């Protein structure tokens, strides 16, 4: 239901504002984008705390999801962009001493980000590369454990649950967009987020992980 309401809100907003004057990314313009984003965590986790097999670590696999942005041009070159999207579902696999056990669980994550951007080249030109930086808020939730995770943390006991977490981090990005016509444009960007998290198991052990994901995305945008 929440997902639907967001989608309908966006659609409604687009319809409402669709009759705006056709300026190309100049001061006062608002753009929206819709696309596909792939998050590739570059995990370095600490050893799982005792009691556990020594050198037990986790790795978090890549995930992709629909994302959207809304951008407001403060000047012809400087803009502020809000980035949100559907939740990402990442597989969690064993690493270190437990490498090879395969998937030990999964976790959902949502990481809305606000970016202050600087756009190069002419405001009315077809091609505008940009860079940006800003804060990211990540919420980890909706985790699922597995028989393998329980077997190595609490054999025979109740299923082990992976605790989620909320964290703040920072993101930098580089991207570019290309105008198709007065309203529509295509956009691609690469983002690097600096963020840590801590996963705590219901059996008491925890591991701190530096996620620092790289994200790549492609989207189609509309300028009002």
């Amino acid at each position, binding site marked *: 239901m929440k997902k639907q309401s967001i989608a309908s809100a966006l659609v409604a907003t687009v319809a409402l504002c669709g009759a705006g004057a056709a300026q190309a990314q100049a001061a006062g313009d608002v753009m929206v984008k819709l696309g596909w984003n792939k998050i590739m965590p570059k995990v370095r986790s600490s050893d799982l705390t005792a009691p556990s097999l020594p050198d037990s670590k986790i790795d978090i696999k890549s995930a992709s999801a629909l994302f959207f942005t809304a951008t407001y041009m403060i000047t012809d070159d400087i803009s502020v962009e809000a980035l949100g999207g559907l939740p990402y579902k990442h597989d969690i696999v064993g690493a270190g001493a437990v490498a090879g056990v395969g998937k030990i669980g999964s976790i959902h994550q949502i990481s809305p980000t606000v970016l202050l951007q600087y756009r190069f080249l002419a405001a009315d030109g077809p091609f505008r590369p940009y860079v940006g930086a800003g804060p990211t808020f990540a919420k980890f939730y909706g985790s699922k454990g597995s028989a393998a995770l329980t*077997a190595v943390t609490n054999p025979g006991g109740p299923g082990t649950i992976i605790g*989620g977490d909320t964290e703040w981090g920072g993101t930098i990005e580089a991207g570019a967009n290309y105008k198709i016509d007065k309203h529509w444009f295509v956009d691609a960007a690469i983002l690097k987020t600096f963020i840590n998290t801590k996963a705590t198991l219901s059996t008491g052990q925890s591991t701190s992980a530096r996620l620092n994901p790289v994200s790549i995305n492609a989207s189609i945008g509309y300028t009002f």
Partner: protein
Amino acid sequence: MKKFHVLTTALAAAAFLAGCGGNEAGDQSPRVAFTQMVNFGDSLSDVGSYDVGAVALSGGGHFSINGVGATGLLYINWTEFLAATLQLTQPCAAETGLDTIEAVVGVPPVPPTFHDTGATPCLSYAQGGSRVTLQPGPGNAALFDPTDPSTFGNAIGALTIPVHDQIQNYLTNVSPTFSPTALVTVLAGANDMFIQVATFQAEVAAGEDPTTAGGAAVLAMTTAADELAADVNTMILANGATHVVVVNIPDASLTPSAISSGASGQALVKQLVQAFNTELATKLQAGPSLLLVDAFSASEDQVTNMAQYGLTNVTTQVCTSSSSLLCTKNTLIAAVAPAASAAPATAANTYEYADSVHPTPYGYRLLAELVGEQMAIKGWL
């Protein structure tokens, strides 16, 4: 203003998306849908072969701290932890009995009885004292000598059915084949080592050259490993088993028993265990149906990194009884005894050893975690 509305709507949408869905344990079924577990071996896998007669009277039966929940853990033996992990019914002893010497113990013997057929068959053939092929094993009444007090413990009369005979009993009583959805576990060899150490000591005491006696002991262990590997290959794997876990002998030189025998005693134990494990690994028929678990290395790691395993003591036995077969939470050293008689002895779970050679329930749980980890890597769990 309209443009601002777009922005605020998107921000609100992003905020909306956060925070849906709770954390769950997820699907706890193993990747292989096992239907039964069959256990062969010695005291380390015994779940109550001797839980009759004199042993039952003392509340014993497991080679650890006896009594369900005695230490607050749900299970005692590693095969019990593993069965629960695999969502199988708990293992029970396939054959029970005691050849108790009544004149010594004061309790009559209990004739051997099989429980491995019927609607709910018990398929844990592992028995305390069992060797790979030969009788008698430690605890067997045949080793009782009325002139030697050090042998009096054998009056309890453990059956010590050798592993070879255990497998044959399964094939004869239950089925000539193993189910492809059965998990078969094999853990044996330590009792052959104990017998060889005793033989070595007797020979050296009688004037035999230690090098010669040691060489004979190593050869006997190698032979036992050859025989166990042959039994696994030709009686289990060749008869249809596709999920066979063989656990090698833990480093018994680190047990309180070996430590009390001094550095030379520890060295002999380690040499014999290593001779067995090396030969076993060489002769077992490797393949997708066989998983050899290295409990030897894991047991050494538990001593080296004991805090990481949640252990505080890896050298002291917590049971005050001579054998953990008779140990309960009421017969524990003061350091781990429960404060109230109704309370579980949770402190015992930070110790590795129950008696001089057998683990506490927590020590068994660590073995179950190791086997579980290796089964997950193998794709079975």
